[in-house]
C-alpha cells in the first residue's frame, strides 16, 4: 500500500499536491472543485489589503509552437473583501476536513494589522497560514510582498508578529528575486516559522509584440515587470529548494513551488527535500483535472521503485549536491553513437563541431553520412547526446574504473603540500600524468 500523505510543518494532507496561492485558489467554488478532483490541499489566494486589478494580467511565452513555456502575471492579491474570503474558507474547511486549507496573507507592515488578520484566519478553522513575501509587482511598491522577502530583517520581524500569536502552523513564502535565498529562509527560521514555501514568481518582462511594439502584458499601452512562473522556471526553483533544504541553519519543512506541471516535476522537488508541492500555471493551462495523473503517476512510480511513503523519498537526491571542487577530475566518459539507431540527422556533428570540441567526424557512407566520435578527443561534455533526437542512440560511456580519484580541492591541496604554485605548467603536468589531453 502506497501512502502519499504528508506533513509539511504540521499541515497534513492526503497527498503532496496543493494548489498554490494564485488565481486557481481564489474562491470556495474553485477550491472545492479542486478537492473533488483530488487535490490534497490548497493555499488560498492571498487575502489582505484592498486592491484593484487591471486588464490584461498575463503574458506568456510559447516555445517552438508549444503554448505556455512560461507565464507571467501582474495580478494582485485577492480583490475580494476579507470577510467574503474568510466566510468561504470556513465553509470550505468544514466541507473538506481531510484536506489542507492554508491561507495566504498579506497586509501592511503593522503589527496590529497582522495580529488582526491572523486571528480571523485561525477562526476559520484553516490548517495553516502562508505569509506572502514574494509577490514582485503591485504589492511590493506598497511595501508588501517581495519588499518584505528581499530584506531578511523585515522578513523576521513580520514573521515574529505572526508566530507570536498563531496557534496554527505558519509557512513563509519566499521571493526568488534575491541574491541568496538562504538569508530570508534563515530569518523565517529565527522567527519560528513552521516551514518555507518557495519559490514565488521571478521578475520578468515577457516579450514585445513586434507588430505593435507593445510589451506583454499591455495595460492600455503601459506595461511593467510581472511575476514569471510555469515550466521554464523549474530549474531555478529546484536549485533554490535544494539550497534551503541543505542549509544547516534553516532545517525547516519545504513546500516546493515553481513550474510543477506533473508528477515527475513534483517528484524532483520532493527528491530535493520538499514535503508538499504547489501548482499554479499548469492548472491555469489545463484545469484541476491534472491532479489525477499526478496522484496516479506518483503512486505507480513509488510502487515500481519499492517506496511505501514519501518520507522514504524526500530529499533522497540531496546528498549528491556538492561543491565543484569535490568532483573527481579523473572521471572520464566519452560519447558512443549506436550506428544502428542513428537516423543521420547529423545534429550531434554540428553541435560538437560548432558548439563544443570538434570530436565528431562526418564520413560519407552508402549515400548517408556516418557520424563517428574520435574518442581520444572527446571531452565527455554530453552535448551530442543532449541534441540527439533518438532515444538511446548516443550514450556517454564511462571509461575510468572509479578507483582513482583526484578532485580540484585535493589537487590544489597537493600542490600546496608540494610547494607548487597553481600554474598552467603544473596543471599540465598533472593532466599529462593521467593522459588528459586538452585541445
Amino acid at each position, binding site marked *: 500500500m502506497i501512502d502519499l500523505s504528508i506533513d509539511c510543518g504540521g499541515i497534513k494532507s492526503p497527498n503532496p499536491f496543493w494548489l498554490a496561492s494564485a488565481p486557481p485558489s481564489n474562491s470556495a467554488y474553485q477550491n472545492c472543485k479542486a478537492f473533488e478532483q483530488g487535490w490534497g490541499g490548497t493555499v488560498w489566494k492571498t487575502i489582505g489589503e484592498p486592491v484593484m486589478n487591471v486588464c490584461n494580467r498575463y503574458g506568456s511565452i510559447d516555445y*517552438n*509552437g508549444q503554448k505556455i513555456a512560461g507565464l507571467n502575471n501582474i495580478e494582485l492579491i485577492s480583490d475580494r473583501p476579507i470577510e467574503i474570503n474568510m466566510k468561504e474558507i470556513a465553509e470550505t474547511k468544514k466541507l473538506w476536513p481531510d484536506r489542507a486549507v492554508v491561507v495566504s496573507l498579506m497586509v501592511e507592515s503593522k503589527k496590529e494589522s497582522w495580529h488582526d488578520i491572523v486571528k480571523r484566519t485561525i477562526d476559520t478553522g484553516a490548517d495553516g497560514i502562508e505569509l506572502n513575501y514574494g509577490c514582485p509587482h503591485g504589492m511590493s511598491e506598497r511595501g508588501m510582498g517581495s519588499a518584505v522577502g528581499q530584506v531578511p530583517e523585515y522578513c523576521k520581524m513580520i514573521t515574529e508578529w505572526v508566530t507570536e500569536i498563531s496557534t496554527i502552523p505558519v509557512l513563509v513564502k519566499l521571493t526568488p528575486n534575491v541574491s541568496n535565498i538562504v538569508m530570508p529562509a534563515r530569518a523565517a527560521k529565527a522567527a519560528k516559522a513552521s516551514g518555507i514555501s518557495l519559490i514565488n514568481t521571478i521578475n520578468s518582462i515577457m516579450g514585445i509584440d513586434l507588430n505593435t511594439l507593445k510589451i506583454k502584458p499591455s495595460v492600455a499601452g503601459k506595461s511593467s515587470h510581472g511575476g514569471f512562473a510555469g515550466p521554464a522556471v523549474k530549474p531555478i526553483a529546484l536549485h533554490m529548494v535544494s539550497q534551503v533544504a541543505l542549509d544547516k541553519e534553516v532545517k525547516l519543512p519545504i513546500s516546493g513551488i515553481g513550474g510543477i506541471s506533473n508528477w515527475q516535476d513534483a517528484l524532483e522537488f520532493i527528491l530535493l527535500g520538499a514535503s508538499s508541492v504547489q501548482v499554479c500555471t499548469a492548472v491555469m493551462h489545463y484545469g484541476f483535472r491534472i491532479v489525477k495523473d499526478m496522484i496516479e503517476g506518483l503512486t505507480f512510480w513509488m510502487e515500481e521503485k519499492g517506496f511505501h511513503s514519501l518520507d522514504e523519498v524526500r530529499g533522497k537526491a540531496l546528498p549528491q549536491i556538492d561543491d565543484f571542487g569535490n568532483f573527481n577530475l579523473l572521471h572520464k566518459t566519452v560519447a558512443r553513437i549506436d550506428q544502428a539507431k542513428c*537516423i543521420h*540527422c*547529423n*545534429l550531434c*556533428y*554540428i553541435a560538437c563541431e560548432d558548439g563544443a570540441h570538434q570530436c565528431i567526424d562526418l564520413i560519407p557512407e552508402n549515400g548517408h*553520412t556516418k557520424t563517428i566520435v574520435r574518442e581520444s578527443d572527446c571531452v565527455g561534455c554530453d552535448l551530442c547526446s543532449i541534441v540527439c*533526437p533518438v532515444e538511446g542512440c548516443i550514450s556517454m560511456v564511462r571509461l575510468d574504473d572509479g578507483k582513482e580519484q583526484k578532485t580540484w580541492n585535493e589537487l590544489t591541496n597537493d600542490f600546496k603540500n608540494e610547494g607548487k604554485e597553481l600554474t598552467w605548467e603544473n596543471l599540465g603536468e598533472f593532466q599529462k600524468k593521467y593522459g588528459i589531453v586538452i585541445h
Partner: protein
Amino acid sequence: MNNLAAKLSPEQYENNFAEIHPPFSHNSAVAEANRCLYCYDSPCTKACPTHIDIPAFIKKIASGNLLGSAKTILESNWSALTCAKACPVQVLCEGACVYNDKEEPAIQIGRLQRFAIDNYFKSGMPKLFSPKEKNGKSVGVIGSGPAGLACAAELSLLGYKVTIYEANKIPGGLNTWGIAPYKTRQADSLKEVELVKSFGVEIKTEILVGKTISFEKLSKTHDAVFIGIGLGESTNLKIPGEELNGVVNAIDFIEEVKKEKWDSVKVGKRVAVIGAGNTSIDAATESKRLGADEVMILYRRSREEMSAYDFEFELAKNDGVIFHFLTAPKRIIGNSSVEGIECTKMKLGEPDEKGKRKPIEIPGSEFVMPVDMVIKAIGQSAKTKFLNSITGLQVENGRVVVNPDNYQTGNEKVFAGGDCINGGKEVVNAAYDGKMAAHGIDGYLNKTAL
C-alpha cells in the same frame, strides 16, 4: 462518342477536383515547421533534385521569416509552387526525412513549401532578386515549361536578355497543362510565369518554332538557344480500331481537363486507360472525377513493373479505378465510335535486356470488355522531326543528347533540358535542368566573350 458520362453539378465538379493536399493554416504550418529537426547536411536537401535548403526554409517559417523562406526555396527552384503541390515528395524529400527512420511521420515538406510560396504570391511578389546589369547578350528559350522558365529566370538574373518562344496561347508548359487539377490549377503555374516575367523575360506565345519561325532564324537572333520543349505526341497503340471516335490520347485529354471547363470535357460512361504510368493514373482519376461510371486501367505487365508511384496507385484505387494487370489490348471494337475493347491475358517471361520481364500473350485468352472511350497513355515520343532539323544536335532513344556538365548539345550554341533530354521525368527535374543549363550557357557565352 457513344454513351457520354452524365454531367455533374458545378459543385460536384469543384468538389471532385478540390485540392487533395489542402494548405496549412498559419498555426499548423508553424507547428509542423517546429517539428523539423533542422538536420545538418540534411537528407531531404540531397533528395531534392533542385537541392533546396529545406531545413533552412522550414526554420524560417518557424521563426516567422516567411519572405526569407520563399527566397531560400526560389533560389533553388523557380517552379516552387508547382513542385510544392505536385512533386512526388514521398519518393523525394519527404521519403528521405530522418523521421522515417524514427518511425514517426515525415515532415510535410511539400505543404510547408507551399505555405511559404503561397504567402509570397499573396504578398504581391515582393522583390527578392535583383537582375545583374544587362550584359548585351541575348538567349532564346524554346518552351515555357518548368525547364524553360527556370533557364530564363536564371539567365535574366545573370544579365542576359531572354525571350521565351511558346507554342501555346497560355504559357507554363506542363505546369499549366499537364498536372491533375486536384494537385495544381493553371493559376498556380501562371503565378510562376509572372514571377519569371518580372525579371524582364519576354514571353512570345503562339510561336511554334519550326513553323511560325524557323529554328535557324531564331538561332541567328540570339547568342544561344535553350530547348525545353518536352515531349511530343502520345505513342500509338498500333492496334486496329485506334482511329475510332472515342479514342483519345492522354496528353490531349488531360490538357482539355486543365481548361477547368469541366462540363465541356467529353468523357465516356465506361473508360479504358491503356498503360500504367503516372499519366495513366491522372487520365483515369480525372475521367472518374468527371463522372465516368466505370474506369479501368489496362496494363500488360503486373503491379510490380508498373511505373506509377505507389501513392498514385492508391489514389486511383480510392477513386474506384479498376486495374486489369497482365491485360493487353488487341483491338478496339466499334462501327464509328468505340463500343468495346478486345484484350488478351498475358504472362511474364524472362527479363529482357533492360531487366524488365517481357509480357507474353496467353493464346486463346481473348476477351471483350464493353467500353465507350479509350485513353492511350503508354508514353510520349520525342519531337524528333523538329529536333533532327537542328544542325549538330543528336537524338538518341528519343532523347536530346547533352553534356551532363553544362547541358550543351552537339550544336555548341544550343542547350537543352527537361523532358526532351530525360524522356519524361518530374517537374522538379526539369526545373533543375533549366537552371543548370542557364549556368552552362553563361559559361559558354562568357568563354566566347574572352
